[in-house]
């Protein structure tokens, strides 16, 4: 019964992740033609990390949109993308990371590969998690707006030097099918491929490696996680402290205490595995007691 519940929840989440990925990348003609989608929906920011140079992408990556406007000549504060992310953040929090993000799905699949997993000591893990906030602040928001050329245009620092989603979803594909782009490949491309390999190996060894330490979108949503409409709840009186929830948490959280911490991606694994079924989740305007004493 208990094992069935865990399996059922896992299958349900995988199905939602696949549907979200296909829905956001529904331009299959792009893969066949080797061209990206140019329709009007590309002006809409999707709530997940999904490169707009991916040949099948139907919307705009919000992190790319933030950097585009911040690095543009007209507006240095990207109201539209920030507002979109705030709305998604306050409604869903990091449920988006757990259920909707294609790059999260990619990492979950990598995590299923049976290799020896690494447990990062708390002393290293905790400060490393702040890295993603630095990336969000400096590479996504500040540098594109402040470090500009003579025309007042800034570079999309995160996309250019870090983003492995862009390399995987767009870079490898376009370089493979476009001979002109292949001629332009240089050190930067090799650097980004190297980073992608690091992320792939990292995600195989440490679950949700990129989400934990690097993702600026996860960093943004984490600011809303504690008070978003979607929350996790635990019945403190019935919790037996068996620690089953902690063992399955992909973000390596101390679940009863950190149930709605900024790091929780709301994957629901803890809820499924709890033998007492004391963990629940819900959308609500009102607060409930959600901390295990």
């Amino acid at each position, binding site marked *: 019964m208990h094992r069935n519940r865990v399996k059922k929840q896992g299958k349900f989440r995988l199905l939602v992740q696949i549907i979200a990925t296909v829905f956001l990348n529904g331009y299959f003609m792009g893969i066949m033609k080797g061209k990206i989608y140019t329709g009007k929906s590309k002006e809409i920011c999707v709530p997940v990390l999904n490169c707009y140079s991916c040949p099948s992408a139907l919307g705009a990556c919000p992190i790319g949109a933030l950097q585009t406007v911040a690095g543009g000549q007209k*507006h240095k504060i990207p109201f539209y993308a920030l507002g979109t992310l705030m709305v998604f953040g306050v409604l869903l929090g990091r449920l988006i990371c757990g259920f909707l993000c294609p790059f999260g799905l990619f990492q979950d699949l990598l995590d299923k590969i049976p290799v020896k997993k690494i447990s990062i000591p708390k002393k290293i893990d905790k400060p490393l998690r702040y890295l993603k906030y630095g990336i969000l602040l400096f590479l996504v928001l500040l540098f594109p707006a402040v470090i500009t050329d003579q025309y007042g245009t800034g570079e999309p620092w995160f996309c250019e030097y870090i983003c492995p989603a862009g390399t995987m979803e767009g870079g490898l594909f376009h370089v493979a099918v476009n001979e002109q782009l292949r001629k332009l490949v240089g050190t930067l491309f090799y650097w980004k491929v190297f980073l992608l390999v690091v992320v792939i190996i990292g995600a195989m060894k440490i679950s949700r490696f990129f989400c934990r330490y690097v993702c600026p979108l996860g960093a943004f949503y984490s600011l809303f996680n504690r008070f978003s409409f979607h929350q996790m709840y635990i019945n403190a009186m019935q919790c037996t402290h068996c620690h089953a929830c902690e063992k399955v948490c992909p973000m390596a959280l101390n679940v009863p205490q950190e149930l709605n911490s900024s790091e929780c991606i709301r994957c629901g694994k803890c809820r499924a595995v709890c033998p007492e079924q004391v963990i629940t989740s819900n959308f609500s*305007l009102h*607060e409930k007691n959600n901390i295990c004493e």
Partner: protein
Amino acid sequence: MKKETELIFLRLIVLLAGMALMILGIMRGELVEVLNKAVRICLECIGIG
């Protein structure tokens, strides 16, 4: 009770602020900027430079 009211207030304020920012961004033409970037292969994103 006071804490709950504060939480509801915070959620609604952030939601409204987010919606207001979205509308403001759309009104000042940010959609065009995003669209112009998104309909071309972003050379920086794919690692060409």
